[in-house]
Protein backbone atom coordinates (compact mmCIF):
# COMPACT_ATOMS: atom_id res chain seq x y z
CA UNK A 1 0.00 0.00 0.00
CA UNK A 2 2.21 2.81 -1.19
CA UNK A 3 -0.56 5.41 -0.85
CA UNK A 4 -0.55 5.10 2.93
CA UNK A 5 3.10 6.10 3.06
CA UNK A 6 2.52 9.34 1.21
CA UNK A 7 2.22 12.51 3.28
CA UNK A 8 -1.40 13.28 3.99
CA UNK A 9 -2.96 16.27 2.39
CA UNK A 10 -3.77 18.47 5.35
CA UNK A 11 -6.61 20.45 3.83
CA UNK A 12 -8.30 17.29 2.85
CA UNK A 13 -8.12 15.88 6.35
CA UNK A 14 -9.73 18.98 7.82
CA UNK A 15 -12.66 19.06 5.44
CA UNK A 16 -13.20 15.34 5.43
CA UNK A 17 -16.33 14.48 7.33
CA UNK A 18 -16.30 11.81 9.96
CA UNK A 19 -18.40 8.87 8.79
CA UNK A 20 -20.95 9.37 11.53
CA UNK A 21 -21.07 13.14 11.60
CA UNK A 22 -24.28 14.84 10.58
CA UNK A 23 -24.20 17.88 8.31
CA UNK A 24 -23.55 21.16 10.12
CA UNK A 25 -27.06 22.49 9.63
CA UNK A 26 -28.54 19.39 11.23
CA UNK A 27 -26.26 19.59 14.25
CA UNK A 28 -26.73 23.31 14.84
CA UNK A 29 -30.41 23.08 14.06
CA UNK A 30 -30.95 20.42 16.70
CA UNK A 31 -28.84 22.24 19.25
CA UNK A 32 -30.72 25.50 18.55
CA UNK A 33 -34.09 23.80 18.95
CA UNK A 34 -33.05 22.20 22.22
CA UNK A 35 -31.65 25.44 23.63
CA UNK A 36 -34.57 27.64 22.61
CA UNK A 37 -37.03 25.09 23.91
CA UNK A 38 -35.30 24.93 27.25
CA UNK A 39 -34.90 28.69 27.56
CA UNK A 40 -38.51 29.35 26.60
CA UNK A 41 -40.02 26.79 28.92
CA UNK A 42 -37.52 26.67 31.75
CA UNK A 43 -35.17 29.63 31.91
CA UNK A 44 -37.75 32.37 31.19
CA UNK A 45 -40.18 31.25 33.91
CA UNK A 46 -37.34 30.85 36.42
CA UNK A 47 -35.97 34.28 35.53
CA UNK A 48 -39.42 35.77 35.92
CA UNK A 49 -39.65 34.42 39.45
CA UNK A 50 -36.44 36.20 40.45
CA UNK A 51 -37.52 39.39 38.64
CA UNK A 52 -40.92 39.54 40.34
CA UNK A 53 -39.50 38.75 43.75
CA UNK A 54 -37.27 41.82 43.60
CA UNK A 55 -39.77 44.02 41.73
CA UNK A 56 -40.41 46.20 44.77
CA UNK A 57 -36.84 46.30 45.93
CA UNK A 58 -34.62 44.33 48.24
CA UNK A 59 -36.33 45.71 51.32
CA UNK A 60 -39.75 44.38 50.31
CA UNK A 61 -38.18 41.04 49.40
CA UNK A 62 -36.53 40.74 52.76
CA UNK A 63 -39.57 41.73 54.78
CA UNK A 64 -41.66 39.23 52.80
CA UNK A 65 -39.24 36.51 53.77
CA UNK A 66 -38.94 37.45 57.42
CA UNK A 67 -42.69 37.52 57.84
CA UNK A 68 -43.74 35.00 60.53
CA UNK A 69 -45.98 33.04 58.16
CA UNK A 70 -43.14 32.64 55.67
CA UNK A 71 -40.71 31.64 58.37
CA UNK A 72 -43.05 29.01 59.74
CA UNK A 73 -43.58 27.71 56.19
CA UNK A 74 -39.81 27.42 55.77
CA UNK A 75 -39.54 25.64 59.10
CA UNK A 76 -42.26 23.15 58.24
CA UNK A 77 -40.73 22.48 54.83
CA UNK A 78 -37.35 21.78 56.43
CA UNK A 79 -38.96 19.51 59.05
CA UNK A 80 -40.72 17.51 56.35
CA UNK A 81 -37.49 17.13 54.38
CA UNK A 82 -35.45 16.17 57.45
CA UNK A 83 -37.87 13.35 58.25
CA UNK A 84 -38.79 12.06 54.81
CA UNK A 85 -35.42 12.15 53.03
CA UNK A 86 -33.51 9.86 55.45
CA UNK A 87 -36.46 7.45 55.63
CA UNK A 88 -36.78 7.26 51.88
CA UNK A 89 -33.02 6.88 51.49
CA UNK A 90 -33.23 3.83 53.70
CA UNK A 91 -36.31 2.47 51.92
CA UNK A 92 -34.70 3.14 48.56
CA UNK A 93 -31.50 1.28 49.36
CA UNK A 94 -33.41 -1.63 50.88
CA UNK A 95 -35.79 -2.02 47.95
CA UNK A 96 -33.04 -1.58 45.35
CA UNK A 97 -31.04 -4.24 47.16
CA UNK A 98 -34.00 -6.61 47.30
CA UNK A 99 -34.82 -6.13 43.64
CA UNK A 100 -31.29 -6.45 42.27
CA UNK A 101 -29.86 -9.08 44.59
CA UNK A 102 -32.64 -11.54 45.30
CA UNK A 103 -34.96 -13.67 43.23
CA UNK A 104 -38.43 -13.89 44.68
CA UNK A 105 -42.02 -14.22 43.62
CA UNK A 106 -43.75 -10.95 42.89
CA UNK A 107 -40.48 -9.17 42.16
CA UNK A 108 -41.69 -7.56 38.95
CA UNK A 109 -44.87 -6.55 40.76
CA UNK A 110 -42.79 -4.83 43.43
CA UNK A 111 -40.81 -3.04 40.74
CA UNK A 112 -44.08 -1.78 39.33
CA UNK A 113 -45.30 -0.68 42.74
CA UNK A 114 -42.21 1.46 43.26
CA UNK A 115 -43.21 3.52 40.23
CA UNK A 116 -46.76 4.21 41.39
CA UNK A 117 -46.05 7.59 42.98
CA UNK A 118 -44.63 8.67 39.61
CA UNK A 119 -47.72 7.82 37.65
CA UNK A 120 -50.47 8.65 40.11
CA UNK A 121 -51.63 12.25 40.36
CA UNK A 122 -50.23 13.92 43.50
CA UNK A 123 -53.73 15.11 44.31
CA UNK A 124 -54.90 11.52 44.42
CA UNK A 125 -51.89 10.52 46.52
CA UNK A 126 -52.88 13.13 49.06
CA UNK A 127 -56.54 12.20 48.79
CA UNK A 128 -55.72 8.58 49.68
CA UNK A 129 -54.39 9.78 53.01
CA UNK A 130 -57.51 11.89 53.56
CA UNK A 131 -59.60 8.78 52.93
CA UNK A 132 -57.49 6.82 55.40
CA UNK A 133 -56.94 9.30 58.20
CA UNK A 134 -59.50 12.09 57.60
CA UNK A 135 -62.37 12.71 60.02
CA UNK A 136 -64.63 10.49 57.92
CA UNK A 137 -61.80 8.15 56.87
CA UNK A 138 -61.17 4.53 57.75
CA UNK A 139 -59.13 5.30 60.82
CA UNK A 140 -60.87 8.64 61.42
CA UNK A 141 -62.91 7.54 64.41
CA UNK A 142 -60.02 5.95 66.30
CA UNK A 143 -57.84 8.97 65.64
CA UNK A 144 -60.47 11.41 66.87
CA UNK A 145 -61.04 9.31 70.00
CA UNK A 146 -57.35 9.41 70.83
CA UNK A 147 -57.09 13.04 69.81
CA UNK A 148 -54.42 12.35 67.19
CA UNK A 149 -54.36 14.75 64.28
CA UNK A 150 -52.88 13.52 61.03
CA UNK A 151 -54.85 15.25 58.30
CA UNK A 152 -54.60 19.05 58.35
CA UNK A 153 -51.46 18.65 60.47
CA UNK A 154 -47.77 18.00 60.03
CA UNK A 155 -47.98 14.15 60.18
CA UNK A 156 -50.30 14.11 57.16
CA UNK A 157 -47.93 16.34 55.22
CA UNK A 158 -45.01 14.09 56.12
CA UNK A 159 -46.92 10.93 55.10
CA UNK A 160 -47.96 12.41 51.78
CA UNK A 161 -44.41 13.58 51.06
CA UNK A 162 -43.03 10.20 52.05
CA UNK A 163 -45.33 8.59 49.51
CA UNK A 164 -44.55 11.04 46.73
CA UNK A 165 -40.76 10.90 47.10
CA UNK A 166 -40.45 7.18 47.61
CA UNK A 167 -39.25 6.19 44.10
CA UNK A 168 -36.35 8.65 43.68
CA UNK A 169 -33.59 6.79 45.51
CA UNK A 170 -34.62 3.30 44.43
CA UNK A 171 -34.99 4.35 40.80
CA UNK A 172 -31.52 5.84 40.81
CA UNK A 173 -29.92 2.75 42.36
CA UNK A 174 -31.66 -0.13 40.59
CA UNK A 175 -30.13 0.31 37.12
CA UNK A 176 -26.67 0.92 38.56
CA UNK A 177 -26.77 -2.08 40.86
CA UNK A 178 -28.13 -4.22 38.06
CA UNK A 179 -25.28 -3.18 35.80
CA UNK A 180 -22.67 -3.65 38.52
CA UNK A 181 -23.63 -7.24 39.15
CA UNK A 182 -22.74 -8.89 42.43
CA UNK A 183 -19.30 -10.32 41.71
CA UNK A 184 -17.48 -7.82 43.90
CA UNK A 185 -19.87 -8.60 46.74
CA UNK A 186 -19.36 -12.32 46.26
CA UNK A 187 -15.61 -11.74 46.29
CA UNK A 188 -15.87 -9.89 49.59
CA UNK A 189 -17.99 -12.67 51.08
CA UNK A 190 -15.56 -15.32 49.85
CA UNK A 191 -12.79 -13.44 51.66
CA UNK A 192 -14.71 -13.83 54.89
CA UNK A 193 -16.50 -10.47 55.13
CA UNK A 194 -19.88 -10.41 56.86
CA UNK A 195 -23.00 -9.11 55.09
CA UNK A 196 -22.81 -5.70 56.80
CA UNK A 197 -19.11 -5.39 56.19
CA UNK A 198 -19.65 -6.24 52.53
CA UNK A 199 -22.34 -3.61 52.21
CA UNK A 200 -20.36 -0.84 53.86
CA UNK A 201 -16.94 -1.53 52.38
CA UNK A 202 -17.84 -2.78 48.89
CA UNK A 203 -21.41 -1.95 47.87
CA UNK A 204 -21.76 1.50 49.39
CA UNK A 205 -18.54 2.97 47.95
CA UNK A 206 -19.64 1.80 44.52
CA UNK A 207 -23.12 3.28 44.68
CA UNK A 208 -22.42 6.38 46.77
CA UNK A 209 -22.60 8.96 43.99
CA UNK A 210 -25.79 7.54 42.54
CA UNK A 211 -27.20 7.34 46.05
CA UNK A 212 -26.36 10.98 46.74
CA UNK A 213 -27.93 11.92 43.44
CA UNK A 214 -31.11 10.06 44.37
CA UNK A 215 -31.14 11.72 47.79
CA UNK A 216 -30.74 15.10 46.14
CA UNK A 217 -33.69 14.54 43.80
CA UNK A 218 -35.72 13.13 46.66
CA UNK A 219 -34.96 16.22 48.74
CA UNK A 220 -35.84 18.60 45.93
CA UNK A 221 -39.20 16.94 45.50
CA UNK A 222 -39.83 16.70 49.25
CA UNK A 223 -39.36 20.46 49.61
CA UNK A 224 -41.19 21.34 46.42
CA UNK A 225 -44.19 19.00 46.50
CA UNK A 226 -47.45 20.88 46.11
CA UNK A 227 -50.42 18.79 45.01
CA UNK A 228 -50.38 15.99 47.57
CA UNK A 229 -49.41 18.29 50.42
CA UNK A 230 -52.08 20.79 49.42
CA UNK A 231 -54.82 18.19 49.82
CA UNK A 232 -53.75 17.01 53.28
CA UNK A 233 -52.58 20.30 54.77
CA UNK A 234 -55.74 22.37 55.07
CA UNK A 235 -53.73 25.54 54.35
CA UNK A 236 -53.63 26.77 57.92
CA UNK A 237 -51.35 29.78 57.90
CA UNK A 238 -48.37 29.64 60.15
CA UNK A 239 -49.30 26.05 60.97
CA UNK A 240 -49.60 23.68 58.07
CA UNK A 241 -48.33 25.71 55.15
CA UNK A 242 -45.18 24.49 53.50
CA UNK A 243 -43.27 26.82 51.19
CA UNK A 244 -45.04 25.79 47.98
CA UNK A 245 -48.41 26.18 49.71
CA UNK A 246 -47.35 29.55 51.05
CA UNK A 247 -46.64 30.63 47.48
CA UNK A 248 -50.20 29.80 46.50
CA UNK A 249 -51.83 31.43 49.51
CA UNK A 250 -49.87 34.65 49.06
CA UNK A 251 -50.58 34.67 45.35
CA UNK A 252 -54.31 34.27 45.95
CA UNK A 253 -54.10 37.23 48.37
CA UNK A 254 -52.52 39.31 45.59
CA UNK A 255 -49.39 39.58 47.73
CA UNK A 256 -47.19 39.20 44.67
CA UNK A 257 -43.87 40.04 46.29
CA UNK A 258 -44.40 37.55 49.11
CA UNK A 259 -45.48 34.85 46.64
CA UNK A 260 -42.50 35.34 44.38
CA UNK A 261 -40.09 35.76 47.29
CA UNK A 262 -41.13 32.34 48.60
CA UNK A 263 -40.99 30.97 45.07
CA UNK A 264 -37.48 32.37 44.69
CA UNK A 265 -36.33 30.23 47.60
CA UNK A 266 -37.72 27.17 45.86
CA UNK A 267 -36.11 28.26 42.61
CA UNK A 268 -32.80 28.73 44.41
CA UNK A 269 -33.24 25.24 45.85
CA UNK A 270 -33.74 23.91 42.33
CA UNK A 271 -30.64 25.68 41.06
CA UNK A 272 -28.49 24.47 43.96
CA UNK A 273 -29.81 20.96 43.34
CA UNK A 274 -28.87 21.22 39.69
CA UNK A 275 -25.36 22.45 40.48
CA UNK A 276 -24.80 19.68 43.02
CA UNK A 277 -26.23 17.17 40.59
CA UNK A 278 -23.83 18.27 37.86
CA UNK A 279 -20.96 18.10 40.32
CA UNK A 280 -21.99 14.60 41.32
CA UNK A 281 -22.22 13.47 37.73
CA UNK A 282 -18.80 14.91 37.07
CA UNK A 283 -17.46 13.18 40.16
CA UNK A 284 -18.92 9.87 39.09
CA UNK A 285 -17.49 10.18 35.58
CA UNK A 286 -14.03 11.02 36.95
CA UNK A 287 -14.01 8.39 39.61
Amino acid at each position, binding site marked *: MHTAAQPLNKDKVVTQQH*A*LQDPIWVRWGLIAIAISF*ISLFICVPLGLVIFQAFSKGLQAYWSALSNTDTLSAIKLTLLVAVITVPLNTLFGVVSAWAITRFEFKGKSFLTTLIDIP*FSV*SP*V*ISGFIFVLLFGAEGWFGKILVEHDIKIIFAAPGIILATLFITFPFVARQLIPLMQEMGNQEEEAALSLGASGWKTFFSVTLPNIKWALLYGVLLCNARAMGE*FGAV*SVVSGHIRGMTNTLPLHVEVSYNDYDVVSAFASASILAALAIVTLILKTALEWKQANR
Partner: protein
Amino acid sequence: MGLQVAFKPLGIVIALIFISIPFVVRTVEPVLLEFETSMEEAGASLGATRLQIFTRIIFPNVFPALLTGFALAFARGVGEYGSVIFIAGNIPYVSEIVPLLIVIKLEQYDIEGATAIALTMLVISFLLLFLINLLQLWVRKRSGQL
Protein backbone atom coordinates in the same frame (compact mmCIF):
# COMPACT_ATOMS: atom_id res chain seq x y z
CA MET B 1 -49.85 40.35 20.88
CA GLY B 2 -53.40 39.15 21.25
CA LEU B 3 -52.05 35.82 22.42
CA GLN B 4 -53.32 35.14 25.89
CA VAL B 5 -51.68 32.33 27.77
CA ALA B 6 -53.01 32.61 31.29
CA PHE B 7 -56.58 31.47 32.01
CA LYS B 8 -56.72 29.55 28.73
CA PRO B 9 -56.17 25.89 27.78
CA LEU B 10 -52.97 27.07 26.07
CA GLY B 11 -51.64 27.95 29.53
CA ILE B 12 -52.25 24.41 30.68
CA VAL B 13 -50.40 23.09 27.66
CA ILE B 14 -47.38 25.25 28.42
CA ALA B 15 -47.35 24.28 32.10
CA LEU B 16 -47.54 20.60 31.24
CA ILE B 17 -44.75 20.87 28.69
CA PHE B 18 -42.59 22.41 31.42
CA ILE B 19 -43.45 19.55 33.76
CA SER B 20 -43.10 16.62 31.40
CA ILE B 21 -39.99 17.35 29.31
CA PRO B 22 -37.62 15.72 31.81
CA PHE B 23 -39.46 12.42 31.73
CA VAL B 24 -38.88 11.95 28.02
CA VAL B 25 -35.33 13.31 28.02
CA ARG B 26 -34.33 11.24 31.03
CA THR B 27 -35.60 7.96 29.62
CA VAL B 28 -34.24 8.42 26.12
CA GLU B 29 -30.87 9.88 27.07
CA PRO B 30 -29.28 6.77 28.65
CA VAL B 31 -30.37 4.64 25.71
CA LEU B 32 -28.78 7.05 23.26
CA LEU B 33 -25.63 7.23 25.38
CA GLU B 34 -25.31 3.49 25.53
CA PHE B 35 -26.09 3.07 21.88
CA GLU B 36 -23.30 1.24 20.06
CA THR B 37 -21.78 3.52 17.47
CA SER B 38 -20.59 0.38 15.73
CA MET B 39 -24.18 -0.22 14.66
CA GLU B 40 -24.27 3.23 13.07
CA GLU B 41 -20.87 2.57 11.53
CA ALA B 42 -22.08 -0.73 10.15
CA GLY B 43 -25.06 1.07 8.64
CA ALA B 44 -22.79 3.69 7.10
CA SER B 45 -20.44 1.04 5.73
CA LEU B 46 -23.40 -0.58 4.01
CA GLY B 47 -24.14 2.68 2.25
CA ALA B 48 -26.97 4.14 4.35
CA THR B 49 -27.37 7.91 4.48
CA ARG B 50 -27.55 9.69 7.84
CA LEU B 51 -31.32 9.95 7.50
CA GLN B 52 -31.60 6.25 6.76
CA ILE B 53 -29.32 5.44 9.68
CA PHE B 54 -31.55 7.51 11.92
CA THR B 55 -34.88 6.12 10.74
CA ARG B 56 -33.81 2.51 10.33
CA ILE B 57 -31.16 1.98 13.00
CA ILE B 58 -31.27 4.62 15.72
CA PHE B 59 -35.00 5.23 15.93
CA PRO B 60 -36.10 1.59 16.24
CA ASN B 61 -33.62 1.17 19.09
CA VAL B 62 -34.74 4.32 20.87
CA PHE B 63 -38.44 3.85 20.24
CA PRO B 64 -39.24 1.67 23.29
CA ALA B 65 -37.54 4.19 25.60
CA LEU B 66 -39.36 6.98 23.85
CA LEU B 67 -42.68 5.24 24.41
CA THR B 68 -41.85 4.64 28.05
CA GLY B 69 -40.89 8.29 28.45
CA PHE B 70 -44.07 9.29 26.69
CA ALA B 71 -46.19 7.15 29.01
CA LEU B 72 -44.47 8.52 32.12
CA ALA B 73 -44.85 12.09 30.88
CA PHE B 74 -48.46 11.43 29.99
CA ALA B 75 -49.23 10.00 33.42
CA ARG B 76 -47.61 12.98 35.09
CA GLY B 77 -49.37 15.39 32.76
CA VAL B 78 -52.80 13.95 33.46
CA GLY B 79 -52.22 14.09 37.19
CA GLU B 80 -50.43 17.43 37.39
CA TYR B 81 -52.05 19.88 39.75
CA GLY B 82 -49.82 22.58 41.21
CA SER B 83 -48.43 24.27 38.14
CA VAL B 84 -51.70 24.13 36.24
CA ILE B 85 -53.99 25.75 38.78
CA PHE B 86 -51.78 28.82 38.88
CA ILE B 87 -51.90 29.48 35.21
CA ALA B 88 -55.21 28.04 34.10
CA GLY B 89 -57.61 30.33 36.00
CA ASN B 90 -59.75 27.27 36.63
CA ILE B 91 -62.80 28.40 34.67
CA PRO B 92 -65.38 25.59 34.68
CA TYR B 93 -65.79 23.86 31.29
CA VAL B 94 -62.89 25.89 29.89
CA SER B 95 -59.73 25.45 31.92
CA GLU B 96 -60.60 23.19 34.80
CA ILE B 97 -58.55 20.01 35.17
CA VAL B 98 -59.56 16.73 36.78
CA PRO B 99 -57.23 16.85 39.83
CA LEU B 100 -58.69 20.28 40.63
CA LEU B 101 -62.17 18.78 40.42
CA ILE B 102 -61.18 16.31 43.14
CA VAL B 103 -59.95 19.14 45.34
CA ILE B 104 -63.16 21.13 44.79
CA LYS B 105 -65.34 18.14 45.65
CA LEU B 106 -63.21 17.57 48.72
CA GLU B 107 -63.63 21.16 49.83
CA GLN B 108 -67.37 20.74 49.46
CA TYR B 109 -67.12 17.59 51.63
CA ASP B 110 -68.38 15.53 48.69
CA ILE B 111 -66.15 12.57 49.54
CA GLU B 112 -68.13 10.15 47.34
CA GLY B 113 -67.78 12.39 44.32
CA ALA B 114 -64.09 12.90 44.95
CA THR B 115 -63.57 9.18 45.42
CA ALA B 116 -65.35 8.37 42.18
CA ILE B 117 -63.15 10.72 40.17
CA ALA B 118 -60.01 9.61 41.97
CA LEU B 119 -60.80 5.97 41.33
CA THR B 120 -61.26 6.58 37.61
CA MET B 121 -57.93 8.36 37.46
CA LEU B 122 -56.23 5.65 39.49
CA VAL B 123 -57.44 3.04 37.03
CA ILE B 124 -56.01 5.09 34.19
CA SER B 125 -52.65 5.38 35.98
CA PHE B 126 -52.53 1.67 36.66
CA LEU B 127 -53.34 0.91 33.05
CA LEU B 128 -50.50 3.18 32.01
CA LEU B 129 -48.08 1.54 34.43
CA PHE B 130 -49.15 -1.84 33.19
CA LEU B 131 -48.55 -0.68 29.64
CA ILE B 132 -45.07 0.59 30.52
CA ASN B 133 -44.18 -2.71 32.12
CA LEU B 134 -45.53 -4.65 29.20
CA LEU B 135 -43.41 -2.49 26.93
CA GLN B 136 -40.29 -3.07 28.94
CA LEU B 137 -40.96 -6.78 29.03
CA TRP B 138 -41.40 -6.76 25.28
CA VAL B 139 -38.14 -4.89 24.80
CA ARG B 140 -36.26 -7.26 27.07
CA LYS B 141 -37.70 -10.26 25.27
CA ARG B 142 -36.85 -8.84 21.89
CA SER B 143 -33.31 -7.92 22.80
CA GLY B 144 -32.88 -11.30 24.45
CA GLN B 145 -33.68 -13.00 21.19
CA LEU B 146 -31.31 -10.82 19.21
